[in-house]
């Protein structure tokens, strides 16, 4: 193959990736507008845009700007963070089954937040909530990676993740069990299901700084993920400080997932699904997958959050329930596909 041919294939691949990115951006923007338009009062896209920029009736403005806009922003940001976290963890561990929810990070973050609420240390709108969620998420991912050790196979990661999410679930149940206020318990139980309903700009302000910080940390390590494709030893020999990278990824995931869980409860499986949807389109390069996975995560969560408003039911379906109902069969499919690697105990 000549040099020109090599460069031509490189260019063709770059163009295809650019096309996919553009399509993703368009899809996310459309879903964002749809999220502003769909609900008990249906608004056309034009009305939405009009109301967004101060036109339309007062009622329309309140619906779009104060009720639905925070929800859409959270759907976009939390979905993006979950997709990004999944892609980053998969890059760090060189493992297509890695994701925050399989590692028990959201469950642990939820425990941290629930503990704060149950102890009456803070109300649900204080920064103590994301603070506790972030600390709990950090501890859970740190412990998981410490247990699994370097070069861990799929099986160890999944077993350790199962143990940690079970422990976090049990600890949450214990807190609710011991709580003396039945109304608080009910509130916590509903919140745990994961939802973006009735969120205000106060919630956006609560989550967004942490999500942004987490995303910046994860994106800053993108090149290291690519080098890590060669394994930890080779990456270290090429100048990647692997221990530092691990700590940064754990911090980034904890900040993002902790911030997200503090306002939305646990929303699972977006981090697992988003990178998988992108691999056939973008390729397997873990650095290139980060932003497309974030956009895919946004698209998935915005769609799920629109779907729960459209699906006819007697009471509202929580978006966290929907993502799990779709995500778990997908996870089973992935297990079936990775069966050989799992049986062999190697990744």
């Amino acid at each position, binding site marked *: 193959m000549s040099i020109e041919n090599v460069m031509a294939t490189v260019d063709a691949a770059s163009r295809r990736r650019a096309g996919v990115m553009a399509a993703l951006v368009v899809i996310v923007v459309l879903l964002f507008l749809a999220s502003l338009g769909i609900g008990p009062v249906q608004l056309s896209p034009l009305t939405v845009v009009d109301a967004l920029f101060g036109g339309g009736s007062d009622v329309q403005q309140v619906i779009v700007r104060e009720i639905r806009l925070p929800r859409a922003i959270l759907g976009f940001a939390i979905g993006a963070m979950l997709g990004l976290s999944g892609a980053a963890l998969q890059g760090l561990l*060189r493992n297509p089954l890695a994701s925050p929810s399989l590692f028990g990070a959201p469950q642990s973050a939820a425990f941290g937040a629930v503990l704060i609420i149950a102890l009456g240390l803070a109300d649900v709108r204080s920064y103590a909530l994301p603070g506790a969620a972030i600390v709990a998420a950090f501890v859970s991912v740190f412990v998981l990676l410490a247990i699994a050790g370097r070069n861990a196979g799929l099986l160890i990661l999944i077993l350790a993740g199962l143990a940690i999410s079970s422990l976090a679930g049990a600890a949450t149940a214990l807190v609710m069990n011991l709580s003396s206020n039945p109304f608080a318990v009910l509130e916590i139980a509903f919140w745990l299901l994961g939802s973006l309903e009735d969120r205000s700009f106060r919630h956006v302000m609560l989550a967004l700084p942490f999500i942004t910080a987490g995303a910046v940390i994860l994106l800053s390590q993108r090149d290291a993920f690519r080098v890590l*494709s060669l394994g930890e030893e080779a990456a270290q020999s*090429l100048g990647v400080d692997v221990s530092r990278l691990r700590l940064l990824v754990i911090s980034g995931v904890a900040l993002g997932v902790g911030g997200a869980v503090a306002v939305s409860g646990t929303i699972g499986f977006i981090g697992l699904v988003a990178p998988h949807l992108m691999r056939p389109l973008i390729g397997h390069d873990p650095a290139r997958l980060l932003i497309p996975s974030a956009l895919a995560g946004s698209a998935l969560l915005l769609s799920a959050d629109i779907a729960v408003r459209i699906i006819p039911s007697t009471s509202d379906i929580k978006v966290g329930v929907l993502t799990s109902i779709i995500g778990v069969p997908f996870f089973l499919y992935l297990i079936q596909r990775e069966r050989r690697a799992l049986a062999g105990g190697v990744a």
Partner: protein
Amino acid sequence: MTVSAFLTARGLGVTLGGRAVLNDVSFALSLGHLVALVGPNGAGKTTLLRALAGLVPSAGSIDVGGDALSALALRERARRFAYLPQGHIVHWPLPARDIVALGRYPHGATDPARLPPRDAEAVLRAMQLADVMEFSARRITELSGGERSRVALARVFAVEAPVILADEPTASLDPRHQIDVMKTLRHAADNGALVMVVTHDLGLAARFADTILVLSDGRLVSQGSPLEALSEQIMGDVFRISAYRAEFQREAVIVPWAEI
């Protein structure tokens, strides 16, 4: 042996999990040489390479190109030592060219799709040297074991480091590809690099290496030209075998023959 050594180790020792894996190893090696590191299983060959690459903490001192290894920043160290671990692992099915381009990471070129001209040329030279141009765009998972090992070599060459450390680069390859890999490494040495190769194949070591270092129980027990370093005495004491020894086409021939 050397007028000006590029890589010097003095009293090198490595302790892993409380056990001394390397003990008081000293040598001085110069550029343009292919050095084979041989010894029985568990002798500390891989540990020695890892210590040189700075992957495990070591006692004693290592000097490379006039600088103490311990004083070099991670990136600078990565520019002086190109390390090829065992097994040629690549965790994702990336195109061969992207893998080779990772060799430019220590030079600050991080995106294979947007390499600065200087780095793109280095990648091209490396791919030509390792003869992988023809499957440049193919994914690593679609290549045979022999082709994969050549891509791994190209990645190592792309660093354009003065020292190349290769851990069993010929393991699990057929004889033709073993010779192919050793010839390619020999070529890199002839172009001025110091190439250190860990191998169990004494025949390949004897034929291609200028210098052989023999490790046994973490100690350097013999070093020199192939026929000197792998003397009958060493073959008996260290490997506990006898060997057929000869010369063919002015190269040393050593064929392990019987256990003793």
